[in-house]
Each structure stands twice: as structure tokens, then as C-alpha cells.
């Protein structure tokens, strides 16, 4: 049985954590594999994107985020296009879902989200994006990222 003091410690921590966590992808991430190129485009949110320059299936990028225990929605703002891959979103190594960036015609500032993400323990977690797969119609594995947000819903 957990000592009452530890329970109150977790409750106290959870009450202090934000319900909205935004990750600006343009600064250097905590780690990346082939995913560190900034490109300027005036049509994009913040006039720029961070993309996986190799466009390969092995590219990855990750950030440490401090989250409260609860249910979260993970939302990305990105550019969809004919050479975009399918982005896998993972938290602490567990896949949360996938987002298909493919579109026959290029589209700016598209929001895509994964809802119902359960976080069991408050504290630091590792959020990681990879592009291991792609739509059959796509010519590449690119992910052109403008903003990432985690929004707690419960």
C-alpha cells in the first residue's frame, strides 16, 4: 500500500502541471535523426517549417515534455503534400497513432490530431515522431512540421 504522503505528492504535482503544452519545432530538438532542417515559407505558420531533410523512413525527432496524468490530444500543424509520409507519434516508446501527411495537392497549415492519449504518471515523458511508412500514392517520407501541441482533455 502506498504511503499517504506519496499519494498527496502526486496529487500536488498533477495540480501544478499545465493542460496545454506547445512544442515549437523550429529550435533544436532534444534528439533527432535526419530531422533538423529549417526552411522558410511565408505561407506557413511562423513562416517556417522543420522537416526531415533526408525524407527517409529512418528519420526521427523527439522532445521531453512534462505532462500531467490524464487524457490528452496530440495535435500537429503540418504541410501535406504528394511526397509526405505517414508520421508515427509515440510517447515513451509506445505508439499513440499515425498521421498521414499525403495529399495529391500541397496544403499548408493542416491540423491533424490523435485523441484519447492516456498518460498514467505525471512528470517528464518523451514524445517522438518517426516516418517509417507512407501512403501508397506518396513519393516520399517527408514530414514538414510547423507546430505541435498536447492538450489535456480529462
Amino acid at each position, binding site marked *: 500500500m502506498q504511503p499517504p*504522503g*506519496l499519494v*498527496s*505528492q502526486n496529487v*500536488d*504535482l498533477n495540480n*501544478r*502541471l499545465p493542460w496545454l*503544452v*506547445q*512544442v*515549437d519545432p*523550429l*529550435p*533544436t530538438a*532534444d534528439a533527432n535523426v535526419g530531422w533538423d532542417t*529549417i526552411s*522558410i515559407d*511565408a505561407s506557413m505558420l*511562423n*513562416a*517556417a517549417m522543420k522537416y526531415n531533410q533526408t525524407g527517409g523512413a529512418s528519420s526521427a525527432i523527439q*522532445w*521531453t*515534455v*512534462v505532462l500531467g496524468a490524464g487524457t490528452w490530444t496530440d495535435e500537429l500543424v503540418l504541410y501535406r503534400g504528394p511526397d509526405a509520409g505517414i508520421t508515427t507519434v509515440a510517447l515513451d516508446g509506445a505508439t499513440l497513432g499515425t498521421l498521414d501527411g499525403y495529399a495529391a495537392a500541397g496544403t499548408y497549415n493542416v491540423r491533424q490530431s490523435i485523441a484519447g492519449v492516456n498518460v498514467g504518471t*505525471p*512528470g*517528464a515523458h518523451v514524445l517522438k515522431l518517426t516516418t517509417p511508412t507512407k501512403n501508397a500514392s506518396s513519393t516520399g517520407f517527408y514530414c514538414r512540421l510547423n507546430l505541435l501541441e498536447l492538450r489535456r482533455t480529462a
Partner: protein
Amino acid sequence: MTERPGLLAARTGQWVNDQALPWRIDVDVFMTAVSQVSFDTITLTGSQAYNGRKQGSVQNCEIGFDVLLAAGTWTYEHLVQTGNSNGIVTLQLNGATVGTLDTYTAGGAFNVRQNVAGIAVASPGRARLRLLMASKNGSSAGYELDVSHVTLRRTS
């Protein structure tokens, strides 16, 4: 018996809970800073991330931001425009210099990321981050600093 820090925090409400503090702090430089000297000009361009930059251009111009930092090791990073009239910015945390970054280049470039790693923060809490344009490269014609974004990233 030593009391766990978290329990102390819950009991007294005075201790800043380190686990609740973020590992990454993005500073939007375009808003009015908590302190500044000759460093409050916003210039919009089509060549820079965030659509532009905040600029100071005289010796000893400075800008400060209050940030809530967890204890640990941090990396400071800014995204700047470099050029032939840009100076060397001194980074200070609570008045102590933690590093310098030379933003001079002969040719100039947009969206350059520079960083100072290994900044030790001993105690969690509010800290004043200060960017002071105190010196310059011998080849530079001025003391300009053109900054579009600032990030503090905790690494351990």
C-alpha cells in the same frame, strides 16, 4: 529520517516542485520584455522564421526575460540573423555570465541557431535571462543583435 522534498513542498507550499517544471522553455521575443535597454524594435521580413526579428543595435543594449527553471543542466539557444555589423552577445543568468555568442559573419545569414550548453542551474525558481550586447568581433562594424527566438532546453 530525511523527509522527501516533495512531501516538504506539499506541506509547506513554499518549495517549487521540480517535477512540475518544464524541460523546455520557448521565449517569444516579440512581446514586450520584462527589461530592455534600446532593444525593442520589431522588424518584419519574408526571410526569417517567425516572420521577423527583434533588434538592438547599440553597444550595451540589452533585453531580459524572467524564466522559471528547474534545477539541472540547460542549453540556451537562439535563432538570429548574423551579419557584418553584428556584435557578440553576453548571456547572463541572474547576473552571472554563462557564455557569449558571436553573431558576426562577413556575408550574413538568416535563421542561424547558436547555443551555449552546460548551463548549471542549482536551485529551481525564477531566473532573469539577460542578453547583453557588450562587445563585438574585431571585424564587425557594429553591435547589432537580431533575434527571432530564444529557447532554453534542459538536458539533465
